[in-house]
């Protein structure tokens, strides 16, 4: 097999291909010279080594595409957020009057959401909309609570977290009211809805996806 | 008399004394299997504790023996409870009440009820006056022998009891043939007796004698 491979080309073939027939010695020197030329940094011994030892797989292998690691739009960690006080409202900003426009906006938003909020609208339809609605800017009152000192707090919701509402009262006080064990009432154009906080322990974004189930009675 | 002991006798769980080095590989999985891991939900629960009342049916009429059966006896006892303790008592006793074992030949009966209400049951047993079977009544009464927490303690007591009965019979023997017969049954009974003695160190955990 090998003999066949390294055989000289027959003269008729070489004539046809217009190749100069070469002797084996010539070929060897050519290869050496070629290698030397193309890899000038390598030493002779190394080249020799490669020639005798190295097995070259004569196979096409595709070049692995290096996956472009898409850089995640990295936000802040919770720690950084805390340090930066991103979600805190500065004391000079804690004024009820500042947030009244937000409340107006919210009212407009709810009216749009409930198709104008006509007085003859179905209450459960409005409730269904309100359940999924954003509550930032709503005026709420704590009507029932296991802890009596929360009862009666009224104000605009500034932020909604998983477990608490941040509410600014008319006295320009920022109150943090837990949702658990509290019932909030929400009044809009004569419609009064009650929010049972214990069943509302979700972030605003998660709430829009959550399916609420009907329950007969809800105990605090 | 001997029949009662033999019928109740079971292969005695002799305490394992095999050397652990030799048989440990086999013994340990058995030991583990005997004590199943307590499920977390059931950890707070307690098993229902029962009381087993061992009594014998005493009757003058020999025909009574053939009507000692589960249903007739259960009905008679229930009837007595209903009479003595009313609907409330009957309802209390009916929880897990069964006739657990019954030997028509010797008249031995084992009743089971909940631990809470065994006093109601025991107090009603003397009021059983007859057994009724196929529209026929045979006057009889129940003699309470033993109240135990497990069937095992009742069985042990019954063997012991029957042995003393046999001994008493032996004393009252008149002819040689009878004596021979009783001695033979005494001997056959003593085998189970020996077994039950080997388990003596763990006896009477739930026994209550009234």
């Amino acid at each position, binding site marked *: 097999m090998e003999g066949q491979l390294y055989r000289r080309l027959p003269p008729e073939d070489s004539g046809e291909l217009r190749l100069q027939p070469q002797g084996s010695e010539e070929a060897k020197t050519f290869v050496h010279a070629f290698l030397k030329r193309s890899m000038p940094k390598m030493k002779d011994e190394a080249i020799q080594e490669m020639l005798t030892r190295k097995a070259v797989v004569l196979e096409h292998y595709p070049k692995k595409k290096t996956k472009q690691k898409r850089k995640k739009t990295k936000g802040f960690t919770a720690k950084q957020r805390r340090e930066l006080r991103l979600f805190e409202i500065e004391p000079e900003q804690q004024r009820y009057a500042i947030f009244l426009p937000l409340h107006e906006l919210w009212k407009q938003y709810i009216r749009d959401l409930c198709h104008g909020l006509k007085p003859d609208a179905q209450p459960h339809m409005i409730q269904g909309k309100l359940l999924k609605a954003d509550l930032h800017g709503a005026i709420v009152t704590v*009507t*029932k*609570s*296991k802890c*009596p*000192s*929360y*009862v*009666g707090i009224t104000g605009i919701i500034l932020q909604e977290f998983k477990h608490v509402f941040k509410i600014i009262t008319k006295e320009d006080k920022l109150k943090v009211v837990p949702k658990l064990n509290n*019932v909030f009432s929400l009044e809009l154009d004569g419609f009064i809805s009650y929010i049972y906080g214990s069943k509302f322990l979700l972030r605003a974004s998660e709430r829009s996806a959550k399916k609420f189930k009907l329950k007969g009675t809800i105990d*605090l | 008399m001997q029949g009662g002991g033999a019928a109740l006798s079971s292969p005695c769980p002799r305490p394992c004394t095999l050397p652990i080095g030799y048989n440990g590989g086999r013994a340990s999985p058995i030991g583990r299997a005997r004590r199943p891991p307590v499920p977390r939900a059931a950890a707070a629960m307690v098993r229902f504790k029962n009381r087993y009342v061992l009594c014998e049916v005493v009757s003058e009429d020999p025909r009574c023996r053939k009507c000692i059966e589960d249903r007739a006896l259960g009905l008679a006892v229930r009837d007595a409870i209903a009479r003595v303790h009313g609907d*409330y*008592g009957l309802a*209390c006793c009916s929880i897990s009440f069964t006739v657990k074992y019954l030997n028509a030949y010797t008249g031995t009966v084992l009743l089971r009820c909940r631990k*809470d*209400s065994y*006093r*109601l049951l025991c107090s009603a047993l003397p009021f059983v006056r007859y057994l009724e079977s196929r529209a026929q009544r045979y006057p009889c009464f129940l003699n309470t022998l033993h109240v135990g927490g497990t069937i095992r303690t009742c069985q042990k007591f019954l063997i012991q009891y029957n042995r003393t009965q046999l001994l008493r019979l032996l004393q009252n023997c008149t002819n040689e043939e009878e004596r021979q017969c009783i001695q033979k049954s005494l001997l056959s009974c003593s085998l189970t007796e020996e077994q039950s003695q080997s388990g003596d160190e763990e006896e009477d955990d739930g026994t209550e004698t009234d």
Partner: protein
Amino acid sequence: MLPAQLGRAPRHLLVCERSHARHPRSRHAAHVRDHAYSCRVSFLIPECGVLPEVVKSTIADIGDYYLVRSLPVHELVTHEFIDAFVKKGSCYALSYKTKIDQDNTAALLPNGKLILSVDKGTYEELGLQGRPSRYSGKKVMRYIITIDLTDAGFQPESKKHNRVLWALKEKKPLEFDFLLAWYNTGAEGSTLMSYFSKNQIQALKPKITFSTLRDLQCPVLQSNDLQGKPEESCSTEELFEWLGAVLNQVSLDNKSSSFLSTYCCPEPNTVVEKAFLCTITGFIIPEKIIQLLEQLCSYFSEPKLAYWLTLTVHGFADSPVSWRESEHGFHKGGENLYNFVIFRNLDYWLQMAVGAHDDCPP
């Protein structure tokens, strides 16, 4: 469900005390004063046909009480009311026909404490700080709110006062029918009648009934022996039971072999030719009961045939307090009562009985 529980009766307490009415450290007046709400007073004098004039005038003087229909509770918290009544005497108020185990109940004690016993829903809505009831089990269904009207922080326009007013007026307007009584020693100012004239108020007179019992079997008592000795004297418990039978006109001549009843008068006993029984029913304030007690003590200042007499006072079963401010519940009876036995030498026995949902009497 266990048969063992069939034999258990609900908890109850009977406290017996023995002392002397003129003893400087005797606490009988304090006990009477601490028991604010009494609905029935009855006394029994053996060997007495006609009531002495002094006692009769005391009974007549027991005074009116008032019933105000649907009075909002916040009226009791206003400063006009506090200044006119609470601070100028002893003012008693108790919600009428409210059941302590199912309704909201309110009571105003003479020391100026307003006590609201409210259910869970009302408490959560009301927004006033309270404490869970002692007898409501693992899941608290009843709360007790105590408001001290005479507290220094309870000035008009103070934060505390405003909060209470807001809660009772706007948040959750509570309304009750109130029984009212007012006792003051000084000059008569405005009266309850004129103060609540815009509400539906009516003055009520205590109902007084007299009766003379003939040939009554009375137990023999020894003033220095509470337990009693067989063949010599009866114990306090026996007396207490006998008294109940007398007050309810149970015939005492039953034979022990009778089919209907085996109750008979405790031994030893004497037959008294006639005994005087008087019962006063109404909203009776402790000050009047103390007066009555004093009159009954002075009954023995002249030699009398009777060896002892009794004065029994029943408290309202549905009042939120029994003695002082200790909580009271109804559970299977709601009794809170006390009974004086006054002996000829002015020794007295005091028996105080409470039911299952009560503290031990002081």
